[in-house]
């Protein structure tokens, strides 16, 4: 058995390991050599398609049992060859928390979901109740044991799954993109919980995630960077953050480090760069202040002619429970705004009211000075487009051209005009070269663009997008957002419903914060985040750039954030 220099036992070991899915032309993992020791907390990062999820699948047995393929080299867990173990045998050693909190909640209630693994192991009923109660307490879900999943938030569902894993004594806890579907505060809480469980149980923890800064909210022992199926780095957080590797790999570095680099500070491991609170900031204070003073003062975006206006909108379903209460705001021409708030605050109901899927109980929606009250869903779609989070919910044709043409054809537009308009929309979305392709051959991000093209083709002046960057890595995030900026430059107003703090901060001109069905704030994103009470009420988190400014003793940290964003946007546009 493999023993480290400090005498720790290896629990996971890959030696010259390669894997190729049956459906793929090339190996997804190539010559991986990696050892993880008992009690370690390891983060595996990498862009989409790098193979980081495949490593997770190898550890829990989904590869090769659920997703078959060819492998070479060796991979062992607790000294046993992985390929010789069934998923069931592995489920006693590795507990997995998947990224979709909804899909993996298989029980009808919290208690049943936690008990699921024990039921399958044949644990006697009397013993189960006590163990369920104990595991539920460990993750703070014990007050919801009888709740059904439809009444739980994403974070609560994830905690339930974690309890279901803790309930049987596994050696390794594996988290596959635990932050993907959570709002910022729930994500932060999840990272704190994982850290607490790690310290209390001393189990080996492996986290696969591309959101580095969020995971580093609590310390990890090691970070492994995967790129194109190979291990690019296997090092400590301090070393990694002091290198230029992250940028070249297309992984977002922590925002405060970006700010420090703009100020020409050199990041070294001795500075403890892994989080903003522990950073040795003294040598950087001078350069940061000088950089701040050299930047022009942030300008308020000029107010624009309103295209869309909501006046005192209230809404409740038939049961009378209010979902929205007196919501009013305006969207200017060519403006990008973000709507933020915790799950269930009423954000998606709001977009459904604007599109006419539901009728408001009271209040008016005004488009260019005209009330939309009597417009049908179909009529509204010509001025306001709605792009859903999951592109698969929108796509009903097999060919790209057909899909984009659909909305025009049902409106009886002549065929040659259809062709011109579809080509135009495809060009705007960068899909023109693929116009004859089947949609199934496209990546997730490209599918998303097809749905945007199918909305754009109707020439709406307002587009509402629900989580346009969900599930996408930094590179695809950038591409998507720069693309939306180009639409904005054409005069299209964009409303983005999002949980992504980076998106809100970096791209939105204004943020509308919805709390319990009412508008809690309507202001520049950095100003919204400067109010602790709003941040808390909407399950947001503040930005590390703000914390950095406070630590550097800058008098107006909020202004610092504004100037940072202005500078950052100039750098990105290059």
């Amino acid at each position, binding site marked *: 058995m493999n023993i480290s220099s400090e005498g720790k036992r290896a629990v996971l070991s890959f030696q010259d390991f390669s894997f190729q899915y049956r459906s793929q032309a090339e190996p997804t993992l190539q010559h991986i050599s990696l050892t993880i020791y008992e009690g370690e907390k390891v983060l595996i990062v990498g862009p989409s398609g790098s193979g980081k999820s495949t490593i997770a699948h190898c550890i829990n047995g989904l590869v090769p049992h659920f997703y078959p393929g060819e492998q070479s080299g060796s991979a062992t867990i607790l000294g046993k060859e992985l390929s010789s173990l069934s*998923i069931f045998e592995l489920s006693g050693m590795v507990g997995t928390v998947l990224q979709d909190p909804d899909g*993996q909640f298989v029980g009808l209630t919290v208690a049943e979901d936690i008990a699921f693994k024990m039921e399958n192991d044949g644990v006697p009923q009397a013993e189960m109740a006590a163990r369920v109660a104990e595991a539920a307490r460990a993750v703070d879900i014990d007050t919801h044991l009888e709740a059904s999943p439809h009444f739980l938030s994403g974070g609560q569902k994830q905690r339930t799954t974690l309890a279901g*894993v803790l309930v049987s004594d596994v050696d390794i806890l594996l988290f596959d993109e635990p932050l993907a579907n959570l709002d910022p505060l729930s994500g932060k809480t999840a990272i704190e919980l994982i850290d607490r469980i790690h310290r209390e149980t001393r189990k080996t923890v492996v986290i696969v995630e591309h959101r580095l800064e969020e995971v580093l909210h609590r310390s990890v022992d090691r970070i492994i960077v995967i790129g194109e199926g190979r291990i690019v780095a296997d090092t400590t957080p301090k070393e990694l953050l002091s290198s230029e590797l992250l940028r070249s790999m297309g992984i977002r570095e922590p925002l405060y480090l970006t700010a420090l680099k703009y100020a020409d500070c050199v990041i070294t491991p001795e500075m403890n760069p892994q989080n903003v609170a522990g950073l040795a900031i003294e040598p950087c204070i001078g350069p940061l202040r000088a950089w701040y003073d050299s930047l022009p003062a942030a300008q308020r975006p000029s107010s624009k002619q309103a295209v869309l206006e909501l006046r005192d909108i209230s809404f409740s379903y038939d049961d009378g429970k209010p979902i929205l209460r007196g919501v009013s705001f305006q969207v200017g021409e060519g403006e990008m705004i973000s709507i933020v708030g915790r799950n269930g605050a009423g954000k998606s109901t709001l977009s459904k009211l604007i599109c006419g899927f539901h009728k408001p109980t009271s209040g008016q929606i005004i488009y260019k000075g005209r009330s939309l009250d009597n417009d049908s869903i179909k009529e509204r779609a010509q001025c306001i487009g709605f792009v859903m989070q999951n592109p698969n919910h929108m796509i*009903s044709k097999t060919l790209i051209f057909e899909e984009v043409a659909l909305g025009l054809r*049902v409106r009886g537009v002549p065929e040659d005009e259809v062709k011109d308009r579809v080509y135009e929309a495809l060009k705007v979305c960068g899909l023109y070269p693929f116009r004859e392709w089947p949609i199934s051959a496209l990546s997730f991000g490209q599918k998303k663009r097809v749905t945007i093209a199918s909305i754009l083709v109707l020439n709406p002046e307002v587009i509402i997008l629900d989580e346009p960057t969900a599930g996408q890595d930094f590179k695809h995030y950038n591409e998507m957002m720069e693309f939306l900026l180009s639409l904005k430059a054409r005069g299209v107003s964009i409303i983005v419903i999002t949980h992504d703090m980076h998106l809100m901060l970096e791209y939105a001109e204004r943020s509308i914060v919805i709390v319990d069905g009412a508008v809690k704030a309507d202001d520049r994103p950095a100003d919204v985040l400067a109010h602790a009470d709003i941040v808390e009420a909407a399950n947001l988190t503040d930005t590390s750039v703000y914390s950095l400014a406070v630590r550097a003793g800058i008098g107006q940290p909020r202004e610092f954030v504004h100037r940072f964003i202005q500078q950052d946007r100039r750098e990105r546009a290059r």
Partner: protein
Amino acid sequence: MKVKMLAYTHQDSSIHRLSGAAKLIFFVLWSVTAMITFDTRILIAMLVCGIVFFRLSKVHYRDYAFVLYLILFFFLLNHLAIFLFSPLEGVKIYGTRHDLLPIIGRYVVTSEQLFYQLNIALKYLTVIPIALLFILTTDPGEFAASLNRIGVSYRVAYSVSIALRYIPDIQRDFQNISFSAQARGIDISKKEKLFKRIKNVIGILMPLILTSVARIETISAAMELRGFGYKSKRTWYRGRPFGAGDIAAIAFIVLLAIGSAWLTFHDGSRFYNPFQ
């Protein structure tokens, strides 16, 4: 949309305490008995028992009101249809004819027809409360456990529970898909011609099926990762042993079924005939 209709609610009553398997057996035998017999005496006795059970269960009227109206509507429709299509069915069955009210042509209200339709009505009224009770008082988690207890494979039994778990999610997907289709101008409301409407609905079903298949893949991976389907037996968190109440309920329904069968068939006819 959170519509809680015709769903299990957690309550404590003698009916709720019965195990799911006992309730299933009871419901099936009860329905079969009510379907077979046309003996008015038995049906009335069963109706009285049904109402008593319903009172015992303490279920709230609001939990089933909508469904009850729906059933009553179809109930009336059904009766109208019977009379329209076969106004003299009762005469044929009972072999006598007592005219009460001639309407037009062959449409004459007879005592025999009224009695025949009364029996049909009684059948409805005996089955409805027990069917509602079964749905409203059976904990779905426990139901899967008891199906397994009476010999159904746990893989099949659990699929019942999984279906109940994910139906609301699929409903929500469907709503989202249909909204986005409508926004693009695909109309599935009555305004559209029938053929076009069917075509449009199929267009919506495609993405629904594809997303549901993707969902099933996630669910089955999650279930396998937690050891489902490997062992030949499993235990149930919500499982409940058979109690005295369960045995009493099953004994009651078996005796009722036998008694009813004897009373119904001993004279060679399914119909109780007061006219002879």
